């Protein structure tokens, strides 16, 4: 059906061009019409429980709500901040007050026009402790949100917060129409968004299908008639479905299957450096890791290049024990760490642990990278005298008994919009979790993070963070070996798709299907 429509448009485009040479540029008409139509089928391998943007925490859910909703701003594939529902924003009072000017004439899928009240309602709900939104702590120190007029929203912070316009790109700050927020339960399976696509069909845990929203504010877009996101619990099935062209785009290819995508004629394996990582916490408030020599010794045991090759097929960027990868604007390179077992042994001796030390390392079984890091670390650290007892457990048990309880375990974090978000989360005892129990012994470093929030000028901010990153590398409470690349696979007929360093930022506004795409029902 889509093909016949495309063929028809193509034909009419040619005819128009031929008949009206002086008036219309035939190439432009053709290009315009060629892009429209088709159903894009995307696959994921994990959870799709809810479509409620205020509450969702899984990558698949973030992908789906990105299609149906908009944020105030967005990060493009180069991670530059660009307008979304807000067309401009300004800071006042030393980055303490932020004012966003909304785009005019934006419509929700249910017909009404977007106003400042919807933005206020969204943030009020998000920040309300009664909502229990998982992201409540990740949108910055907001004190008040108010509508100045119909299209102006003002956020007043408790303290200066220079990166706020980038922070509102988080998935939980998608703008929901206020009538949708009245029933948070229903919002799990309905949507009240302004995005390029509207909800057509949703079976939790299985698939979600969205269809083109004709009144989208980016006129002429989206090009696709619809998109389906399907969950494949088994990556081998997912890959076969892709090879048989039942799937056009695999979001999140596992590293071991990536080469199979790459060698498939007509398929494209996409990779981009991201900010996702797994790291090991070194609880610094008690022995043995309260001694920085022991932390340093463990970090020195790790052959990061080998670890990356063994665990992620070499698809990634080497880390130096801090969470800022090249995907962040605040990134500043530090010399790579190489394994040095002699020095590690010497440091252990200096710390009085010449005879070795036994520690217990916990790892949840999901995602698999956690367990792999634990097992490889056990082997690599053994020669320096670390006897690591690895305890792999189900995710629910990990959450209840290990996570954030001051033990040595493997954390896993997805890319955040700003360096502030991930650094605060990892190190700050109040704004974040301080999972390494490190803040108390390093108050100056924590102060650096707090001061960063006052710095508006990007280059100055980068230099300021560089100081923290160095401390974090040399004394920090995390052994962070590498960042994983984002890996996608797609067929060549999927055009203008740009893989974002943050995998859930899947923007499909201007993606289109070339004529070679297989025929299928919407």
């Amino acid at each position, binding site marked *: 059906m889509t093909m016949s429509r495309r063929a028809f448009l193509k034909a009419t485009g040619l005819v128009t061009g031929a008949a009206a040479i002086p008036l219309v540029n035939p190439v432009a008409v053709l290009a315009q019409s060629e892009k429209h139509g088709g159903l894009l089928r995307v696959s994921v391998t994990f959870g799709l429980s809810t479509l409620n943007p205020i509450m969702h925490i899984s990558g698949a859910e973030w992908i789906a709500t990105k299609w149906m909703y908009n944020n105030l701003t967005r990060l493009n594939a180069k991670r530059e901040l660009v307008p979304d529902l807000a067309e401009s924003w300004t800071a006042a009072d030393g980055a303490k007050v932020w004012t966003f000017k909304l785009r005019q004439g934006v419509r929700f899928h249910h017909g009404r026009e977007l106003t400042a009240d919807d933005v206020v309602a969204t943030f009020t709900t998000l920040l309300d402790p009664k909502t229990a939104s998982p992201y409540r702590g990740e949108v910055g120190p907001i004190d008040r949100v108010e509508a100045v007029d119909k299209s102006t929203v003002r956020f007043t912070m408790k303290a200066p917060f220079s990166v706020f316009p980038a922070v509102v790109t988080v998935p939980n700050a998608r703008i929901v129409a206020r009538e949708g927020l009245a029933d948070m339960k229903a919002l*799990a399976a309905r949507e009240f968004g302004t995005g390029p696509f509207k909800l057509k069909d949703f079976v939790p845990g299985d698939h979600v299908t969205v269809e083109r929203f004709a009144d989208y504010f980016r006129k002429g877009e989206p090009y696709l008639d619809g998109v389906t996101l*399907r969950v494949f619990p088994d990556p081998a099935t997912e890959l076969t479905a892709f*090879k048989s062209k039942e799937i056009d785009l695999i979001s999140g290819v596992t590293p071991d299957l990536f080469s199979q995508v790459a060698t498939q004629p007509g398929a494209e394996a996409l990779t981009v450096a991201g900010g996702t990582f797994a790291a090991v916490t070194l609880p610094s408030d008690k022995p043995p890791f309260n001694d920085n020599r022991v932390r340093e010794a463990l970090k020195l045991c790790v052959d990061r290049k080998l670890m990356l090759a063994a665990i992620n097929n070499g698809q990634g960027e080497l880390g130096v024990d801090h969470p800022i990868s090249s995907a962040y604007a605040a990134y500043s390179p530090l010399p790579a760490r190489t394994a040095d077992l002699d020095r590690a042994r010497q440091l252990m001796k200096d710390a009085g642990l010449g005879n070795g030390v036994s520690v217990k390392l916990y790892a949840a079984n999901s995602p698999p990278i956690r367990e792999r890091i634990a097992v490889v670390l056990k082997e690599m650290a053994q020669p320096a005298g670390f006897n690591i007892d690895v305890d792999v457990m189900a995710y629910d048990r990990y959450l209840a008994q290990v996570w954030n309880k001051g033990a040595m375990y493997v954390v896993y974090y997805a890319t955040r919009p700003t360096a502030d978000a991930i650094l605060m989360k990892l190190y700050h005892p109040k704004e974040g979790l301080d999972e390494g129990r490190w803040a108390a012994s390093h108050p100056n470093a924590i102060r650096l993070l707090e001061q960063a929030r006052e710095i508006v000028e990007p280059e100055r901010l980068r230099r300021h963070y560089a100081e923290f990153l160095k401390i974090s590398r040399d004394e920090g409470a995390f052994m962070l070996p590498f960042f994983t690349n984002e890996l996608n696979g797609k067929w060549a007929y999927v055009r203008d798709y740009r893989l974002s360093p943050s995998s859930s930022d899947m923007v499909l506004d201007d993606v289109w299907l070339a004529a070679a795409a297989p025929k299928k029902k919407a």
Partner: protein
Amino acid sequence: MTHYALRRLASIALILLLVSVIVFAAIHVLPGNAATLILGEYATPEAVRTLEREMGLDRPLPAQYGSWITGVVTGDWGVSLAMKQPVATIVASRLRNSAFLALAALAVVVIVGIPLGTFAALRRGRPLDLAIVTATYVGISIPEFVTGLALLVVLAGPSVGWFPTSGYAELTSGVAEWTRHLVLPSLTLTIVLLAHVVRQTRSGVADVLAAPYIRTARLKGASTRRIVLRHALRNALLPTITVVALDLGYLMGGIVVVEEVFAYPGMGRLIIYAVQNRDVPLLQMCALVVASVYVLANFAADLASAWLDPRVRYS
């Protein structure tokens, strides 16, 4: 007979009640709950408490169980904690999908398995018998996820591509499309189950063929066809019916694996989902449904045996 049936139904109700208590207790032995999983690694103690209160998870366990069982009896199955949708709606559609799968597999097993077993019995010790027995044994020895993936890669791969790799098509999109989606997952289940029925039928028919009354029938001049269909099979099939009923229970387990492999939205995947998300109302209902299918199938098998064999009397 009626008295027997009523007594059996009462014991079935008791079994289901016990199942629900055991599942409820088992899921609460594990640490954590739906609230900790909804919030994941973003949880704050305050947010966990808020969600627990909202979902009623802060109440004592007997009270939680009490209100759940009251709901079930009065027809209110509750709301899924993770999906926020009525459990009844979710379970109904998933159960229907799985039923298609299970019935398709079971039908093929019965239609193919009984004749195969009979042929094997008639050709006991000869190459055909050996081939049938070996082939079905290979089928049962290989786990479902291997069989499933092998079928998938070969028959749904790009070079052959006869069937879709995965998913489910609504009947509204056409019977052909619907069937195409059922073939591979139900074939996987069939391959695993075939051995039970074939072996049982084979030994049943073989036993009966050795019985004196078959010799009598033969001496009377009855054709092999008539002997097998009229005399042997009817008597030999009794144990097979029990095996088929037990297989239905086995099928419920097989479905969990097969539905994961073929990304098929049925009860199997729903159970995994409910466990992973600690979605107690959803899991409770799934467990009840699976247990019901199992005990009712056995009950039906017993009734069928009585009907087929006048010597079987329940009192």
